[in-house]
């Protein structure tokens, strides 16, 4: 196909892909007259090795792949430091800053440009991208020991930049918008381990952080986040992503989507023009890792040599080049239909491995801490090896192949199979046996598959016995938290405190969760435990909350909500009542009802109306009554000495004081209080979680009452002479409950588990009471605020409305 005289080949861009292409092409004795343009004033170097240059582990000279001699030897004319201004496709001429050059074939390898997030201050000196040697040199120049750097972006590039700057002595903070680092390569568990490792090296990591502005007068001084956090910054590195550099191609009228579109031969819409590297889009895919780019280079060289070849993107694996952080990811590790996970966690050694199987094939692998087997797994993924025979021991790697499988089937029990075991759900013994035979070897799994003991729970013992018989005694009767773990609630609470676990991935990793992100049972519990134990560090996760707490209203059976504004101690005003009446009319509330907790319930509100209604109630000075929360509900009071002829103390005032102290706090289950002004007990205080009955000599505090499915009188805790002490004891009791109870245990259930004496022991020590009050107050510094006001803000309302309305389109 090729004949002399030599055709003119012009290559724009001297990056790694074009470098590899030129190597292959010239090795084969390219029949071309080659000219190479590069905007950077230098030839090809190994960009992957920029991070060791940044950290000082290597020099630029060591990473140069093609020096001047190399180009000369291959007969390649170089025009470095010269931008191409224009491509004239008709005349087949490129225009450089220093003159025109005709071509027969043109290769566009312009690579990618860093994406700069459009925030105020991004143009300030001291704000840079991390892309090429010049950026790296800028960073090295700025990296004074002790100076502060903020890296925006917790992906591969950002973390390498952060590690490099840190090694040069800077104080580095990484701001990442997603919930965990390197979310494209890692799942949350591995991301958590990585974050932990980076933090251990002194790099601060701020996930879920959206940059609002870069502040500074003449140069960058600080970075401001949407949540109000400010980090000092002498240097700001933006590493949020790259996008294909397509401007030249665009201007020349070549077909461009996200990248320059090419076919399997890397040919663009113009048959004389090829594109290569990070600037291309092939089959709707962009490329950022080097392996597929090198494949492209080989294909293009073959094409230019007139040989048949086609580009097929292959699976890629990622390793992070940060000393001391051992991680590996390959393939596709998203959950999916027909996909199964094999998860291995060794919390003590900080190891996490997850394999994703689809049928008999391994399709993805994520590893942290021990990546020695990474390439073996990568091989299995690429070759689509049938792994069914080694599945049992697959996760242990190539060294462990050949183990036998265990059959858990045991002898059949002797009880009549049609005996009903669970009355609530009508489950007979035979069904439980079937479930056990089907692999349900824990109470939780039996509950999940048969619903036996899943409602009231009184048959739990019976179900365990049937399981024990069926399994031959090998039943796990431990009351584990959920199907994701064998640990009990108490175990998990203890570990959260003992190990200082401050995020959901941290708990799931360190406690060996068997699912990637928990379930509807453990997530709400963990969310509570974390926010109760680490009020300042942990941020409430709305998506881990049941609907009522997520939407700050009570869902009704028809999907509408009820809205209950707070009435402190059950006291209201004509103005508040007017505002409630107005809201009821404005939003067509079908029912207005007085609740048992001395306030007013507006029932039947549409979800999308909630924020506006809250804003109206806020305007009248009202806040959420938390009638939906596992938290403080109401403090019911009588009128006490204010008006009542029998009243012994100001019960209304005490109730309001308690409610103002306790409102907004999250608790394991709901908390209701009552304060009665005399032993006639009009506020029905003795069936509340905490009840106070005023007497002449002071305040009788009793706890752990119930008036629901269970009816139970409170038990005496203490009698104190002053109102201040009554408040102190009440808050201490509630904090002790918050710190120790199982999620969804009411106070009476908790005290029954631990014993009221244990509670009294803890609370009778004044120092302990004081400390509990301080910890409660610390938590309240975060949570004593109105969630309605938060969600009624104009910018925060969207989630309450539908995302799209397709009704009109249907009518067309």
């Amino acid at each position, binding site marked *: 196909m090729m004949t002399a005289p030599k055709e003119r080949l012009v290559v724009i861009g001297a990056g790694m892909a074009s470098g590899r292409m030129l190597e292959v092409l010239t090795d084969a004795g390219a029949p071309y007259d080659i000219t190479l343009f590069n905007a950077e004033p230098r030839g090809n170097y190994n960009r992957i090795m920029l991070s060791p240059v940044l950290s000082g582990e290597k020099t630029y000279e060591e990473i140069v792949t093609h020096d001047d001699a190399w180009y000369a030897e291959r007969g390649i004319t170089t025009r470095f430091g010269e931008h191409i201004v224009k491509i004239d496709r008709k005349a087949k001429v490129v225009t450089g800053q220093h003159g025109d050059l005709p071509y027969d074939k043109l290769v566009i390898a312009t690579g990618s440009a860093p994406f700069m997030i459009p925030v105020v201050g991004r143009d300030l000196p001291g704000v840079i991208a991390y892309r090429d040697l010049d950026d790296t040199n800028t960073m090295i120049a700025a990296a004074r020991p002790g100076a502060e750097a903020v890296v925006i972006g917790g992906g591969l590039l950002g973390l390498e930049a952060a590690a490099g700057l840190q090694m040069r002595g800077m104080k580095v903070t990484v701001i990442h918008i997603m919930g965990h680092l390197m979310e494209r390569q890692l799942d949350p568990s591995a991301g958590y381990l990585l974050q932990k490792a980076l933090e251990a090296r002194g790099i601060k990591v701020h996930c879920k952080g959206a940059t609002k502005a870069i502040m500074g007068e003449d140069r960058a001084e600080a970075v401001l986040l949407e949540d109000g956090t400010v980090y000092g910054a002498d240097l700001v590195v933006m590493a949020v992503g790259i996008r294909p550099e397509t401007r030249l191609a665009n201007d020349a009228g070549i077909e461009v989507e996200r990248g320059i579109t090419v076919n399997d031969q890397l040919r663009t819409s113009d048959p004389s023009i090829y594109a290569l590297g990070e600037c291309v889009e092939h089959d*709707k895919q962009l490329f950022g890792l080097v392996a597929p780019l090198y494949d492209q280079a080989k294909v293009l060289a073959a094409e230019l040599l007139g040989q048949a070849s086609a580009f097929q993107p292959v699976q890629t694996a990622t390793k992070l080049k940060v000393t001391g952080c051992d991680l590996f990811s390959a393939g596709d590790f998203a959950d999916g239909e027909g996909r199964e996970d094999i998860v291995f966690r060794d919390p003590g050694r900080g190891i996490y491995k997850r394999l994703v199987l689809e049928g008999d094939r391994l399709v993805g692998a994520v590893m942290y801490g021990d990546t020695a087997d990474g390439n073996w797994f990568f091989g299995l993924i690429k070759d689509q090896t049938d792994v069914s025979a080694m599945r049992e021991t697959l996760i242990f790697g190539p060294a462990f192949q050949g183990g036998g499988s265990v059959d858990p089937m045991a002898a059949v029990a002797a009880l009549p199979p049609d005996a009903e075991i669970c009355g609530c759900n009508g489950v007979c013994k035979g069904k439980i046996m079937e479930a056990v035979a089907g692999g349900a070897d824990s109470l939780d799994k039996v509950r999940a598959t048969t619903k036996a003991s899943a409602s009231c729970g009184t048959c739990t013992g019976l179900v365990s016995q049937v399981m024990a018989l069926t399994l031959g005694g090998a039943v796990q009767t431990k009351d584990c938290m959920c199907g994701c773990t064998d640990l009990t609630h108490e175990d998990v609470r203890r570990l959260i405190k003992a190990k200082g676990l401050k995020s959901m991935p941290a708990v799931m990793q360190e406690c060996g969760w068997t699912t990637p*992100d928990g379930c*509807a049972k453990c997530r709400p519990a963990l969310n509570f435990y974390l926010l109760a134990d680490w009020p300042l560090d942990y941020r409430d996760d709305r998506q*881990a909350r049941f609907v009522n707490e997520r939407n700050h209203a009570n869902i009704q059976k028809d999907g509408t909500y009820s809205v209950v504004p707070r009435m402190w101690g059950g006291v209201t005003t004509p103005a508040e009542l007017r505002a409630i009446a107005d809201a009821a009319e404005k939003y067509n509330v079908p029912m207005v009802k007085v609740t048992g907790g001395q306030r007013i319930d507006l029932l039947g509100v549409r979800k999308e109306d909630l924020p506006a209604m809250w804003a109206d109630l806020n305007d009248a000075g009202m806040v959420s009554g938390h009638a939906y929360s596992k938290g403080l509900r109401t403090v019911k009071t009588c009128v006490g000495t204010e008006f009542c002829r029998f009243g012994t103390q100001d019960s209304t005032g005490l109730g309001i004081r308690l409610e103002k102290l306790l409102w907004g706090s999250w608790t394991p289950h709901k908390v209701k209080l009552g304060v009665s002004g005399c032993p006639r007990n009009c506020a029905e205080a003795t069936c509340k979680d905490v009840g106070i009955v005023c007497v002449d000599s002071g305040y009788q505090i009793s706890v752990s009452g119930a008036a629901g499915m269970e009816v139970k009188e409170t038990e005496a805790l203490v009698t104190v002479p002053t109102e201040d002490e009554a408040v102190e004891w009440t808050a201490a009791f509630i904090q002790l409950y918050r710190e120790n109870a199982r999620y969804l245990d009411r106070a009476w259930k908790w005290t029954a588990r631990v014993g009221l004496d244990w509670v009294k022991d803890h609370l009778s020590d004044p120092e302990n009471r004081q400390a509990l009050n301080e910890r409660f107050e610390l938590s309240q510094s975060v949570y004593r605020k109105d969630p309605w006001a938060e969600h009624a803000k104009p910018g925060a309302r969207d989630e309450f409305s539908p*995302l799209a309305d*397709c*009704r009109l389109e249907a009518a067309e």
Partner: protein
Amino acid sequence: MTNWIDIAALDDIPQQGARLIRTRTGCVALFRTHDDRVFALDDRCPHKGGPLSEGIVAGHTITCPLHNWVFDLNTGIAQGADDGSVATYPAKIENGRVLVGSEIIARRHAA
């Protein structure tokens, strides 16, 4: 061949959460999972009509907020001992946008 409708940016749906699409024949819930996949299902539990979009998303399942039925987001089939299923619709992410099969507009009319 599926025709796709561009509904919104992926970031408009919270991770491990859901948003709604209103259609003439009821709402369709659009779920986003922890690993950034999207699923479109009828927003109606076959048990008592609970709004599935208000449930808790875990792995590739959704738990109905009313009585804790659990559905596989891939198939719409109830898990465990419960019997029932929810209609599913094609959904995908492209360039950070969420696309849903146009059949959600014409659903039931076409059936």
